[in-house]
């Protein structure tokens, strides 16, 4: 029983990372109608930036997150404005190919710069935590969950409480109508992608404190972000939070509680969840029927 509670706690904590990874992905998918296959690569760019700041400048990984977010915001804005805006009206297939190409370029550029060595960010408090009734809670993972919830709240606030957010939502609802009322589509597209990239960067920063990173470590996160968004339901930040936490929980319990399965089965579990949700409840756990 204690083992079960421990796994539930760990599952919810790792779910926080999935929330952080999926929020940007969900935003780009929901507003721009682009499934960004380079999302995992952006996450890893964030992870490497955090590692650079930690290893070279001795900046605490959590303190580095705002810097990483700003850097990726700028990178995301430029990427969307220069490249992805050109295919925004093309069939989804072309956007998939284009973002996959961007993914290849980023991952291999990272390989050129950082080689394929494992890097990890290990602040003094890494590995320590506190226990409640025999259940261990690592500080770093708790911090990661906290940051993820804060990012979700921030994005939710941006979308629902600001004028920029209203413009972003208007573009997501109806591009032509948004253009007619004077919204600069190209700018809003780029802004949306920039916010998503910033979220991905923060998620990468969190990941760098939890696992060792390599340039190719980001690819599973793209698939996982997709599963989280499908699981929660596309279109709302709250749904992504629920999706991420449920996904973390199911994945952790699946790996530890089902005999015969282990860490090597993470992708297969994710995929099984995906297919199950798509068949049984295509609108997601929290989604409304379109």
């Amino acid at each position, binding site marked *: 029983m204690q083992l079960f509670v421990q796994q539930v706690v760990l599952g919810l904590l790792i779910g926080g990372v999935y929330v952080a990874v999926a929020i940007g992905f969900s935003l780009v998918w929901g507003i721009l109608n682009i499934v960004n296959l380079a999302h995992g690569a952006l996450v890893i760019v964030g992870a490497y930036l955090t590692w650079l700041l930690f290893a070279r400048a001795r900046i605490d990984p959590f303190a580095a997150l705002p810097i990483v977010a700003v850097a990726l915001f700028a990178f995301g804005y430029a990427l969307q404005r220069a490249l992805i805006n050109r295919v925004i009206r093309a069939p989804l297939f072309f956007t998939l190919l284009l973002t996959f190409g961007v993914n290849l370029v980023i991952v291999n550029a990272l390989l050129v710069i950082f080689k394929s060595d494992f890097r990890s960010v290990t602040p003094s408090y890494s590995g320590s935590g506190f226990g409640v009734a025999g259940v261990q809670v690592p500080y770093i993972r708790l911090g990661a969950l906290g940051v993820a919830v804060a990012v979700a709240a921030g994005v939710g606030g941006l979308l629902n409480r600001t004028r920029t957010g209203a413009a972003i939502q208007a573009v997501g609802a109806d591009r032509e109508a948004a253009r007619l009322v004077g919204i600069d589509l190209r700018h809003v597209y780029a802004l949306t992608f920039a916010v998503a990239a910033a979220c991905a960067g923060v998620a990468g920063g969190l990941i760098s404190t939890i696992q060792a990173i390599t340039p190719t470590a980001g690819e599973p996160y793209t698939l996982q972000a997709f599963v989280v968004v499908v699981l929660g339901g596309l279109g709302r930040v709250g749904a992504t939070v629920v999706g991420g936490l449920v996904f973390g929980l199911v994945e952790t319990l699946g790996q530890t509680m089902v005999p015969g399965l282990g860490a090597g089965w993470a992708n297969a579990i994710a*995929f099984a969840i995906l297919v199950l949700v798509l068949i049984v409840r295509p609108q997601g756990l929290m989604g409304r029927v379109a």
Partner: protein
Amino acid sequence: MSAAMPPPSSETILVERPRLLDRRRLRRLLVLLLVLGAVLVLLAPLTATDQADSLGAPQLVDRSQIRILTTVAMFVVMASAWNLVGGLTGYSSFGNVAFFGLGAYTCAVAVDAHRLHLPMAAAIALAPLVPAAFAALVGLPLLRLRGHYFAIATLGTAVAVGEVVKNVDYLGGATGLFPPILHRADLLFLYLMVGAALLAVLVSRLILRSRFGYGLIAIRENEEAAGVIGVNTTMYKVGAFAVAAALTGLAGGLFALWNSFINQELGFSLDFNIQMILMAVLGGAGTLFGPVLGAIVLELLIQNLAGRSDVAVYAQIGLGLLLAVTVIFVPRGIVAFFGGGSRLSVAHLRRSLRETGV
């Protein structure tokens, strides 16, 4: 139009100056070139055999080129097979490499002395069947999905099947399987793979000209309307998926035997996965020869770059940039780019998608 205008006579048609390169001529030229190329490809390697060597015949190709040609033929199979689903039916599959891996593992398990221990011919015959059965099985739920959902669900299938294979000891686990090495078999596998490529093109042509093929195009253009006019959309889609899986699986099976080694990274390589799509799109998705052309051009490019291992990373970056350039500047593919709009081109796909408001 005034009533005094004479009806167009046969003379007026005769006087009309024929265009130097209209579509039919271009097509014939292309077919002729392909046939010539194929004959050369089939005969040239014979000069590299030991017998030809001892007779003092000039070598037209060396053995590394035989390897490259075999790889090119393999990608012709995969790109043509992908085209049946992605180009013709309009379902952008991102997981066809699952069929390649399944075919490869089927063959490897079949010939393995400690497992099924079947003769090679039986193994090759099994290679298309297992992936086709798998495609029919997963196709039923997957092909109900559309757009992004279908693309990612198929990608997930490929990743998940690869992971299962890696975790099952009977299938060699993380180590992989080692089909027996056949000595001096490079020519044999070249001809087998070219045979598979010809089969893929033949099957594609038969489908394109059949009721089945028109049904698939109808599904691509408007699935609801296709259903209304009597196309059994589920059966058609699953059928196309299974045929594509069979061809891709055949290529995978031949690859496993030829390479004498198969593991999860090779069998379920995400590079192969994206390359076959890029080839079909680069050449012209929905056309018969587009994927063939794309496979030849791109694979020769990749082989000549990747032959030097020090540039492998840069080759990947180049591939990524090529994807971007293709998508932005030649979205309809080489065939349409040079040959004018084809009836079966992506232009139709784009237009129909735009009209349906994607």
